[in-house]
C-alpha cells in the first residue's frame, strides 16, 4: 500500500511536466501577444515593445522560457501577470475558493441525489418510480449544461423567485446552490443510472440469497450486503467525475457570474497571459491527480479483493 502511494505520487511528476509543457505550447501557438495587448488599439513604438519583451524574458527561445517558468515554479514563483502586475499565485488563490466550493457542493449533490435515486430505481427496477428516474436522468444527459443553466435561472429565479439569478457573494452557500445543481445535473444522471444498474444486478446475486436465508432483515441485507458491493463501480466513476465537475464549473460560473477560476482563465486567455493560464490549469491537474489517488485508495477499502502492491 505505502509503495503504491509513493509510486502514484512519483507518477505525478511526468504528468505535471507534460501538462505544463502542453499548455505552455498552446499559449504560444495562439495569435497575438500579451505585451502588444497592453497598448490596445493605440499605435505602438516597436522599440518600447522589444525592450519590454526583453525585460520579461519573452524574447528568449521557447524552451528557455519554459525552463525559466519551471525553475520559478520550484522556487514557488508562479510568475506575474503582465497587464495587472499581480502575482499569478494571488489570482489563483483569490479565484480558487469559489470554484472549489461550487465543485464540492455539486459533488455532494451528485453523491447524495445520484446514489439515492439510483438505489431507489435499482431496488424497484421496472416500476413506475424507476421509469420516472430513468426519464429524468435521460433528460439531464441529453440537454447541454448551459441550456439547463438558463432554464433553471428562468424557472427558479425569475418565475418562482426562490433564488437569485446570479451569484453576488461566492462565499454564501445558499447562493451557490442553484449553480451547483446545474453543475451536478449531468454527473448526477450518470451516477444514478450507474448505481441503478449495479444495485439491480447485485440484488440478484447469490450472496443476497444467502443474506435472506440467514434471516437478515430486508433493511440490513440492503444496507450492509447490497450497498457495499453496488457502490464499487460508482466510486470509480465518482473519482473521474471530479475532473468533469471542475471543468464544467467554468461554464456554470459563466452562466451564474461566479468569480471563480472560470472567469480568471477566461480573462487570462483574452489577454494572452500564458503564466496565469498555465498556473491555473496545472493547479487543477494537481487537484485532479490527488483526488483520483484518494478514490483509488478508497476503492481498495471498499473491495478487499483489490490489493495494491
Amino acid at each position, binding site marked *: 500500500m505505502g509503495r503504491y502511494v509513493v509510486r502514484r505520487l512519483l507518477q505525478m511528476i511526468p504528468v505535471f511536466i507534460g501538462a505544463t509543457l502542453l499548455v505552455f505550447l498552446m499559449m504560444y501557438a495562439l495569435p497575438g501577444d500579451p505585451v502588444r495587448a497592453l497598448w490596445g488599439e493605440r499605435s505602438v513604438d516597436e522599440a518600447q515593445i522589444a525592450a519590454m519583451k526583453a525585460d520579461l524574458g519573452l524574447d528568449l527561445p521557447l524552451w528557455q522560457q519554459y525552463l525559466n517558468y519551471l525553475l520559478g515554479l520550484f522556487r514557488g514563483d508562479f510568475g506575474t501577470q503582465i497587464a495587472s502586475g499581480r502575482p499569478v499565485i494571488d489570482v489563483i488563490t483569490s479565484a480558487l475558493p469559489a470554484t472549489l466550493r461550487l465543485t464540492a457542493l455539486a459533488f455532494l449533490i451528485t453523491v447524495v441525489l445520484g446514489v439515492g435515486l439510483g438505489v431507489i430505481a435499482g431496488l424497484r427496477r421496472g416500476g413506475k418510480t424507476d421509469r420516472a428516474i430513468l426519464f429524468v436522468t435521460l433528460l439531464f444527459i441529453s440537454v447541454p449544461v448551459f441550456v439547463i443553466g438558463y432554464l433553471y435561472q428562468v424557472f427558479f429565479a425569475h418565475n418562482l423567485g426562490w433564488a437569485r439569478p446570479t451569484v453576488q457573494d461566492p462565499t454564501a452557500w445558499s447562493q451557490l446552490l442553484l449553480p451547483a445543481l446545474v453543475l451536478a445535473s449531468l454527473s448526477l444522471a450518470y451516477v444514478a443510472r450507474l448505481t441503478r444498474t449495479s444495485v439491480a444486478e447485485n440484488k*440478484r*446475486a*447469490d*450472496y443476497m*440469497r*444467502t*443474506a*435472506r*436465508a*440467514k*434471516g*437478515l*432483515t430486508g433493511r*440490513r441485507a440492503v444496507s*450492509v*450486503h447490497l450497498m*457495499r*458491493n453496488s457502490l*464499487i463501480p460508482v466510486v470509480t466513476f465518482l473519482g473521474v467525475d471530479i475532473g468533469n465537475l471542475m471543468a464544467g464549473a467554468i461554464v456554470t460560473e459563466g452562466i451564474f457570474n461566479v468569480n471563480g477560476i472560470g472567469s480568471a482563465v477566461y480573462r487570462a486567455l483574452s489577454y494572452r497571459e500564458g503564466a496565469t493560464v498555465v498556473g491555473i490549469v496545472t493547479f487543477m491537474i494537481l487537484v485532479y491527480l490527488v483526488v483520483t489517488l484518494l478514490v483509488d485508495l478508497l476503492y481498495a477499502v*471498499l*473491495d*478487499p*479483493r483489490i490489493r495494491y502492491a
Partner: protein
Amino acid sequence: MSDRTERPTADEPNATTGTTGPVEAAPSATGPAEEVVEITKSGRAGHPATGGGEPLLEVRDLAVEFRTREGVARAVNGVNYSVHAGETLAVLGESGSGKSVTAQAIMGILDTPPGRIAAGRVLFRGRDLLVAPEEERRRLRGERMSMIFQDALSSLNPVLSVGYQLGEMFRVHRGASRREARERAVDLMERVRIPAARERVNDYPHQFSGGMRQRIMIAMALALEPDLIIADEPTTALDVTVQAQVMELLAELQREFHMGLILITHDLGVVADVADRIAVMYAGRIVETAPVKELYAAPAHPYTKGLLESIPRLDHKGKELYAIKGLPPSLTALPTGCSFHPRCPMATERCTTERPPLHTVLDASEAPVEGRGSACHYWKETLHG
C-alpha cells in the same frame, strides 16, 4: 426463542433412523419414530411438544410456478416429503427437476415474482409456513432452519470478512455485540476445523480455498444450531477428495446436533453414504421414495433404475455406458400422464394419459414396505422384473 437448553449430543442412539418416516402418499405406511422425537423434545425447552411420529418438516402437495415469457413453467408439481429430527433425506434429481425450487420455497427465499407458490403446505413443527407472516418466517430462517448453497464463493459476500458474515448470525438473531459475535465466529470456524481460525477470522472469502469456503458456509448454517438444514448440492463445486471431507463433516455435525438434513444432490455416490432416505424427483414430482439401501438394491421406478444403471462401474469396463435416452421435459409443456413416459423403456398407452399416483410399494409377501413409494403404474414389474 433464545432460551434453549443444551442439546443432547451424539451418544444417543441416533443416525439409524433409516426407516422412520412415513411417506405421505402411502397411507398405510406408519413408522413412528418415538425415540427420535423424544430426544428432540428434551432438547427443546419452551417448544410445544410434538406428537409421536410428527416430522420436523412436512411438505404437502407443494406446487411452484414461474411466469416466463414462454408461459408458465411448472417447476414443482405436488411434492410431498417429510424429514424427522436426526434424519437425512436426500433429494435426488437432474438439473431442473425442481429440487432447489422446493428447498427455496421451504426456506421462503423464492423470488416472487417471477415465482409463485400455487398450492400446498409447508409444515414446520406442525405450523404452516406458507401462511405465516413474513417477519415470523424471517426469524425462523437461520435460527431454526438454514441453508447451505452450492457455490460458496458467490454465496458469500465478497466484500465482507468471513468473521463478519458468521458473526452476523449472532448479531441479528441474538443481539450479540460486535466483539461477542467475532468470538463466536472464531468458535464456529474451529468447529468446522478451519486451521488457524483466530488468525483467519478477518480474512475474506476469496482468500480461502474452495473446501474451506464450503466449511464456512456450513459453519454459517450451523451457527444457531437450527433444527433443519437444507444443503443444496453442498459438494458439487468441490473436487472429489474435498467432497468426501465436507460430506463427512456435515454428517458428523448433523449427528452431533441431531438436526434434520435435506441433502439436495444429483450425485448418487454422495447420497449412498450419508442419507437415510431418498426422494427421487423428476419434472417437479417425487417419482420414488425409499430408504437408501432398498432404493439402491431394487429401484421401483424406471427413472431411478435408469439413474442407477448409468453409474460407471468397474466391472463393466469396456462396455458402453448406459444413458437414459432423451432430455428432461420442458417445464412449460410437461408431457401428459406420467412426465417420464417419453423417455421410459416401459411406457405403455396408459402412461401417456394417466398420471400415476405415488403407489405404496409392497414386498414379495404383499406387505407394504415402510417408507417406500413409487409413482409408476408398473412399479411391481420394475421392482421384481
